């Protein structure tokens, strides 16, 4: 591979506490190095910002429910698909782009790694088929565990070790990355059309509570010492008054210590927390609970969060929180898709229009930004839109603009039909904070990489790390007064080098690069009981054979495997 040197840019690398120093970044054989020879290809970054490739900790980009969204929304493509360029595959879709467009769009924004946020284990070959068809970006996928029969069964009996052994087996079988919980217990209850709206609602038949599932999985995750912590979508998402249950479930992480060899400090990642920070008792007196939630998060070391910002677009909601999507469908009466997955999970998909003319949507928009603006530790607070739930990932640059510019926030606030009511129900109007480029780099690079236990690979520009380097057309010393220019700069990177190859130049994709699938291989001593339980369940309860369940190697042709060794 050729040598490249990115010269004279303003380097922002929070992983090494570098904030705007003018420096060169040298690249050789796909890695960042100290220096390169004089023959290296020169990228002139003078007057521009240089950051590591972006790391997305949570997005729904591949798999069955994403594809249901694509399939059942032809109108998401109508007049909205960009023109294909020569040498590239056709791009389709706005809120749920095709796999090709997903890869190209992330690359255009300078993103190197994206975590698919919810993989139904039974459908893991599908998830990997899609990842395989998504160009450029590296991806991993989190299998869901929070409503899994094995997990509930073992934890009901208090068997953390067996739970851990099962988790290890499933992550390996699905070539997954970590432990995702979605509405723990609630989605299992949805198998009978029910839900668990509090932490103490027992799951029908399994007689275990969401609190017990969460605590058990936290323990099992640290027992295994996985790179990532438990990654949770809490119960009672999207309902007024849910901020209290959110804080209560965050509290379950107290007293659990991170145990891993990957530099991860948190034991729980609480995702798209915007949807969980609602006060009020109904949609009429609905208001922001961002302050209360962030007061707790700011003082708790064992937590990381991502925002899940509402971007005021027409989008497609999709989650393994099956009962929530059913509930949402009852509110907006649009089409509703649902997939209950035997023994494991469920998923729902409903289109949604975050209409700036609707008060609640304006409040949701404000809450997402408030959470980011109230955050004290930006290395533990990440930018997401829970793509595509609160908005498509292609709106990250807009979220960055809002976070960096009070002027931009006020402009949007002024465009809301119920501006005054939104101001009354939120804090946004009174917040003057404007985040810096350094803080944005923490929230999109160093922070999420560390949270995923991959801070030695992604999210920084130290020698030895993966050569993912993004150049943005922003002058660090002389930031534009027009916030639109910030959005524009982050929408289309001036240059993006992925694994040492120039894949984007002047905002246009040049090359398909070399994508990889990152998965975690947990090696631990055989657990005969768990092995027997799995075998028995495949004979009796599943409808596929155990031979045909684990993802075959050829479906993941470019693996990057992180080994975890668990001692007996």
């Amino acid at each position, binding site marked *: 591979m050729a040598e490249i040197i990115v010269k004279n840019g303003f380097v922002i690398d929070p992983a090494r506490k570098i904030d705007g120093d003018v420096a060169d970044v040298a690249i050789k054989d796909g890695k960042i190095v100290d220096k390169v020879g004089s023959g290296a290809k020169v990228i002139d970054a003078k007057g521009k910002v240089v950051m590591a490739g972006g790391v997305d900790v949570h997005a729904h980009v591949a798999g069955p429910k994403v594809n249901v969204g694509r399939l*059942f*929304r*032809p*109108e*998401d493509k*109508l007049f909205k698909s960009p023109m294909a360029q020569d040498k590239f595959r056709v791009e389709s879709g706005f809120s749920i782009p095709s796999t090709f467009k997903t890869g190209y769009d992330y690359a255009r924004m300078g993103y190197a790694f994206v975590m698919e946020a919810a993989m139904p284990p039974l459908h893991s070959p599908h998830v990997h088929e899609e990842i395989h068809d998504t160009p450029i970006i590296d991806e991993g996928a989190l299998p869901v565990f929070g409503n899994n029969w094995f997990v509930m069964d073992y934890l009901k009996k208090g068997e953390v070790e067996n739970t851990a052994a099962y988790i290890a087996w499933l992550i390996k079988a699905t070539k997954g990355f970590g432990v995702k919980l979605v509405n723990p217990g609630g989605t299992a209850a949805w198998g009978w059309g029910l839900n668990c709206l509090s932490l103490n609602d027992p799951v029908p038949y399994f007689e275990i509570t969401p609190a017990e599932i969460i605590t058990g999985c936290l323990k099992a995750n640290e027992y295994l010492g996985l790179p990532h912590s438990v990654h949770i979508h809490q119960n009672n998402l999207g309902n007024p008054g849910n901020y209290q249950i959110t804080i209560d479930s965050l509290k379950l992480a107290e007293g659990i210590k991170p145990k891993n060899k990957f530099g991860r400090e948190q034991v729980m990642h609480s995702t798209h927390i915007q949807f969980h920070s609602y006060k009020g008792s109904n949609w009429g007196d609905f208001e922001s609970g961002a302050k209360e939630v962030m007061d707790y998060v700011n003082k708790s070391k064992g937590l990381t969060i991502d925002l899940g910002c509402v971007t005021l677009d027409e989008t497609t909601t999709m989650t393994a929180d099956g009962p929530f999507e059913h509930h949402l469908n009852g509110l907006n*009466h*649009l*089409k509703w898709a649902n997939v209950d997955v035997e023994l494991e999970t469920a998923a729902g998909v409903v289109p949604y229009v975050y209409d700036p003319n609707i008060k609640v949507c304006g409040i949701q928009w404000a809450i997402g930004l408030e959470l980011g603006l109230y955050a004290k530790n930006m290395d533990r607070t990440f930018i997401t839109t829970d793509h595509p739930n609160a908005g498509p990932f292609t709106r990250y640059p807009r979220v960055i603009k809002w976070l960096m510019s009070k002027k931009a926030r006020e402009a949007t606030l002024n465009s809301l039909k119920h501006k005054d009511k939104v101001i009354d129900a939120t804090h946004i109007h009174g917040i003057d904070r404007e985040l810096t480029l350094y803080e944005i780099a923490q929230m999109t690079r160093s922070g999420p990489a560390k949270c995923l236990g991959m801070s030695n690979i992604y999210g920084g520009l130290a020698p030895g790390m993966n050569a993912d380097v993004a150049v943005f057309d922003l002058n660090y010393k002389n930031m534009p007064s027009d916030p639109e220019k910030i959005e524009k700069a982050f929408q289309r990177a001036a240059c993006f080098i992925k694994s040492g190859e120039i894949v984007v130049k002047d905002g246009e994709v040049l090359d398909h690069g070399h994508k990889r699938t990152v998965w975690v291989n947990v090696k631990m001593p055989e657990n005969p009981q768990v092995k027997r339980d799995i075998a028995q369940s495949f004979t009796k309860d599943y409808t596929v054979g155990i031979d045909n369940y684990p993802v075959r190697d050829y479906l993941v042709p470019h693996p990057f495997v992180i080994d975890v060794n668990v001692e007996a």
Partner: protein
Amino acid sequence: MATVTLKPTKVPELMLEGYTISPDTFAGKTPAQIAGLEGREGKIKVKLGDFFEVSGSPGKTATETDIVIAGDCSRVKYIGNKMTAGSITVNGNADMYVGGWMKGGRIHVTGNVHSFCGIAMEGGEILVDGKAENYVGCAYRGDWRGMRGGTIRIKGSAGNDIGTFMLGGTIIIEKDAFIHVSTHAEGGTVIIKGDVEGRVGGQMVKGDIFVLGKIKYMLPGFKKIATVEKEVDGVMATFDHYIGDLGERHPKSKGKEIFANLYVKAAA
């Protein structure tokens, strides 16, 4: 007003996608420029001039532009696509998507039209002297926002799926229709002057349907509540007033459920 005349000179081998045939695109252009406008025949980029002789000249704006197609367009799709003003007259038949996504202006087809006439229309008028195939004034696949405004008048008969997901505007079919009228509609008015086979107002939430002929198979979800006198398209008549679809959800206004209305001309 200024008139541009397109005289068909060649029948496309496949179908011509004439999405540039609209006052909005023609306005302010010379005949030569119009002849050079793009169309598609399969993957081949063609020019309107390959299929039409262009004469006359358009106005400066769409509003001031009338287009006359002096001949048959049975193999031309997308006439008047997304147009906002001005007029188009087709002296003959036209293929699919006449007045698709139209926002304003007038289209008059003297012959028949194929399917998807007035799909997702927002405003303006479409008049068809002949008959229409399926999907008059329907929504695009998957979209819950169908026809929102404007008027479509088909002087002949129409096929199935009339006004699917309709939200507003008026569709008048002067002769018979087959099945599925205003399915999933949440507004708008459909008037069928002839007979309908059945499935009128299925899954309908709100809106009005008038049938001046007979409905062969009534849906079980419609219930007769009254007999009323109404004026429809300039004619007074006595109608049996049904509400429905009782199987579907309905919004409430001031505590009362709002149903869709189906008026069927009462037997004399």
